[in-house]
């Protein structure tokens, strides 16, 4: 029997949602055959089995959140098991310790902060989930009545879970985070392979080797206790090793032997009794990642069930639902609408069509609008900001990552043009085409949908005069662009035909006042109306 584990899904991704199984119990699978689709933050990843065999048991149901490294499938290895399968089993006898301790976690508690101080406010985490931390490394900053204190972890491991958020008031002795294993063996390598992974669009290709290592290295539970060599602890090398392998800190054990020697029995009984390692308190349900707000969950009571179809709300749809609900609940939205003369813009765009084609791309209005937007938010930095509610702070961003809403068969996604201010319109055009195509194919990497500082939604190509979009939290504004239409106007006393385009700017009213938004739109329109003005500001 071989356990198939959920491999690493990407940098910083610790869990994913099971979208569907592609195999069922009894199926014979080949090595590298896809067995499941897992959705991470935004990308759907195909998970292959590294070995061949017969599916014995599927351990999760669609919609469930699965942590990386969890066993997802039990496979009965067939005769055709591949090399990697045999390697996996070959490792087992040599690492019995790893096998027994692989699931152990260590709780890190908030230590005493000072005399009479019983609690403190979490200012920030100084580590991230998935980080490998050393013993004594600072993991958090806690503010007490008088001072901000750096809280170290007493043991090394990999950060598994934060129990509190910034701004939470934490009582001394509360568990603040949990650590697992020792070295995060694969997180680090993954971080650097992005460049190479780019060729294959998801991280699934690297899943198989990762998996093989995982079985041998998910290891070292507990802590890496300091060596006794430097202390005056008396114990034989064999006893010291035993203690380490059992996760007992020998430095803290009273020795019952001659002259205070810590004996083998001392170590064994320490493990039986109150060992210095506390196991994780079984974290039960895992949250779906983003907001842990409590929204009411009213049931829908069918009155005509026969004519209704029920589909599980999972995958991207569920993610969209959560994000929209959270954004609308957190941000007081308001929207300003207006139209602008784009006659010149249309002319300019038409004039570069051939040029763009020669350069192997297609110029749409979106990249030009993006440039105008960047030029405008440089004048109005509050539009390129976020509100850090936990710390009651406004975060102004000095970089310009522009998200654009893309419609896909699976639903709305927002790919991001990173550092769009540093790219030419031609470059942005190419990137938009590439990202849009991969968005439709569901092949975007999570990273490509992260980090936007403001978003543009463009439903003009479909229709509608105006819309009131929802801001992509934690951003504070979203620009809407709509259809271009011919419109008659009276110009210098004469009837003339011009081209107009409708825009909306939707903003977070906590940060942006109505008049500011109006000025923003005015400045933006000046650039759209007269692209020459925009060109003056281009770098």
């Amino acid at each position, binding site marked *: 029997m071989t356990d198939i584990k959920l491999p690493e899904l990407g940098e910083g991704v610790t869990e994913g949602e099971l979208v569907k199984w592609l195999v069922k119990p009894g199926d014979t699978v080949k090595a590298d055959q896809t067995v499941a689709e897992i959705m991470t933050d935004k990308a759907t990843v195909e998970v292959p089995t590294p070995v061949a065999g017969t599916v014995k048991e599927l351990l999760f149901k669609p919609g469930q959140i699965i942590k990386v490294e969890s066993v997802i499938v039990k496979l009965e290895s067939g005769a055709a098991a591949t090399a990697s399968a045999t*390697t996996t089993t070959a490792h087992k006898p040599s690492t019995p*310790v*790893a096998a027994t301790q692989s699931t152990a976690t260590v709780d890190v508690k908030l230590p005493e902060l000072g005399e009479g101080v019983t609690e403190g406010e979490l200012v920030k985490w100084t580590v991230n989930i998935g980080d490998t931390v050393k013993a004594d490394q600072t993991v958090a900053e806690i503010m007490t009545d008088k001072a901000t204190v750096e809280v170290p972890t007493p043991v090394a491991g990999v950060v598994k879970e934060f129990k509190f958020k910034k701004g939470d008031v934490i009582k001394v002795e509360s568990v603040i985070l949990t650590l697992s294993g020792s070295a995060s063996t694969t997180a*680090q*390598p993954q971080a650097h392979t992005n460049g190479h992974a780019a060729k294959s669009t998801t991280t699934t290709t690297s899943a198989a080797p990762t998996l093989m290592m995982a079985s041998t290295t998910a290891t070292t539970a507990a802590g890496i*206790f*300091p060596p*006794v060599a430097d202390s005056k602890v008396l114990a034989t090398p064999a006893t010291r090793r035993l203690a380490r392998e059992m996760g007992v800190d020998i430095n803290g054990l009273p020795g019952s032997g001659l002259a205070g*020697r810590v004996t083998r029995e001392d170590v064994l009984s320490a493990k039986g009794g109150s060992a210095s390692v506390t196991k994780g308190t079984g974290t039960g349900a895992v949250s779906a990642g983003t907001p842990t707000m409590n929204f009411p969950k009213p049931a829908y009571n069918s009155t005509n069930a026969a004519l209704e179809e029920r589909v599980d709300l999972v995958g991207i749809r569920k993610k969209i639902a959560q994000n929209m609900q959270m954004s609308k609940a957190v941000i007081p939205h308001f929207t300003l609408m207006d139209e602008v003369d784009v006659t010149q813009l249309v002319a300019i765009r038409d004039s570069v069509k051939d040029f763009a084609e020669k350069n192997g791309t297609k110029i749409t209005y979106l990249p030009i609008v993006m440039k105008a937007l960047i030029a405008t938010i440089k004048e109005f930095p509050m539009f390129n900001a976020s509100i850090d509610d936990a710390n009651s702070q406004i975060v102004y961003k000095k970089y310009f990552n522009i998200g654009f809403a893309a419609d896909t068969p699976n639903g709305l996604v927002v790919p991001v043009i990173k550092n769009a201010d540093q790219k030419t319109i031609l470059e942005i055009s190419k990137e938009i085409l590439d990202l849009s195509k991969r968005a439709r194919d569901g092949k975007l990497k999570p990273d490509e949908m992260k980090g936007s500082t403001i978003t543009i939604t463009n439903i003009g190509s479909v229709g509608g005069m105006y819309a009131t979009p929802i801001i992509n939290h934690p951003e504070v504004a979203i620009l809407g662009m709509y259809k271009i239409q011919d419109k008659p106007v009276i110009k210098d006393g004469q009837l003339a035909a011009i081209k107009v385009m409708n825009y909306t700017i939707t903003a977070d009213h906590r940060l942006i006042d109505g008049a500011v938004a109006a000025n923003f739109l005015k400045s933006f329109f000046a650039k759209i109306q007269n692209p020459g003005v925009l060109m003056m500001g281009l770098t």
Partner: protein
Amino acid sequence: MQNFDIVVIGSGPGGYVAAIRSAQLGFKTAIIEKEALGGVCLNVGCIPSKAMITATHLLHKAQHDFKTMGLNIKGGIDVDMKTLVSWKQSVCDKMSGGVNQLLKGNSVTVIKGTADFKTTQELTVKSSTGTDTVKAKYFIIATGSRPIEIPGFAFDEKDICSSTGALAFDTIPKRVVTIGGGYIGLEISSYLRKLGTEVTVVEANTSLLSGVVDPECAQVVARKAEKAGIQFKFGAKAKGQKKAKDGYEVTVEINGKDEVIKTDKILVTVGRRPNGDQANIKGVGIQTDDRGFIKVDAQRRTNISHIFAIGDICGQPMLAHKASHEGVMVAEIISGINRVYDAKTVPAVVFTDPEIASAGMTEAECKAKGYNDLMISKFPFAANGRAVSMSETDGFVKMIADKKTHILLGVHIVGPEASNLISEAALAIEMGARLEDVALTIHPHPTLGETMMEAAEATLGHAIHIIQKPLGGAHKTATVTK
């Protein structure tokens, strides 16, 4: 492009041991070596120097002890340096070949070439046949150290030599100046002297091996070396050299005055430096300290969690056996076993005449650690039957124990086979043994090992084979605090 679970860079006593243990644990393992398998230790360090020392020790015995024992050699002994050097080389080749067989037998892929980190994920390996990329999930850096070069004494390895060049001399130099009286300089100087070379050791400190070994042990060696005819210049700084009509003139500064020493060869043995500046270690963000050692934690993990460093490259002491210990440890850590570097002592040996070996702390180190009440005593080899019968009576075994608990803290040996005797001391210290544990263990007679038992007895105040003051109850274990 080749892909491995673990790639070890460097095949010295750290690297090849790490590779073998990695393979034993089931990892797909490769080892990269740019020169000969076995590294400095097997090829230009520990092993060849021991071969030379053994041969010249025999020569010395033949010249000095044989006559007393009634063994007369007619016409004297002729040293054929070419044969001696090629025999030495055959010893190295045998060892290096053995490493190759062990690696092969464990299915470790041996890659010949120079490795440079391209990213933290992959290495570029340049060899005579081209350039290849090697990827791995884990890397173990075991690239060791190299002799320190000092200004004005650039190595040509013919006349101005590091240990590497000196070990390859195929004629007996008439005169040698050794700059640096550390263990490497002393080992080579001692055997050259036995071959008849006029040796001058230039040492910046005021004594030999200062700060490295127990000062009393160093004294025994210094005295015997002086008697053998080695010249010592203490408190001397080598300022430069120039080519003279015959050989070289080395200028040294002693007490502010320059002195010129004429010589044929110059041996510079002022220490070794870690190779932290190679293999593009820093280029991919692996942190080193200001001396070039890679910074590691107690698991020998670098700041990049899937890259480890072992041996000379990760810190003192730069000793082969420390590297091997770390190599095994790191492979096991990667396999998931919870280990850290947790040795109480790294025994050290110096193959001078007589040998020096130590385990545990010196008196000064004990004091620094807060052991204020110490028991210290010595037992001389001159009182040991086997040593006398070997005609090797210089030296002693010195023991240091905590007076409260009698727990052994340090053992320092200078004398015959000190290198082989020290392992018992290392075991005793790791086990947390007390003086009584050593004293009450029956040691076979007649052996040099008896000196360990006797030294423990002497430290307790009641050795049999030396005259000690009346016991006054000191032999009763009950006086020891539990």
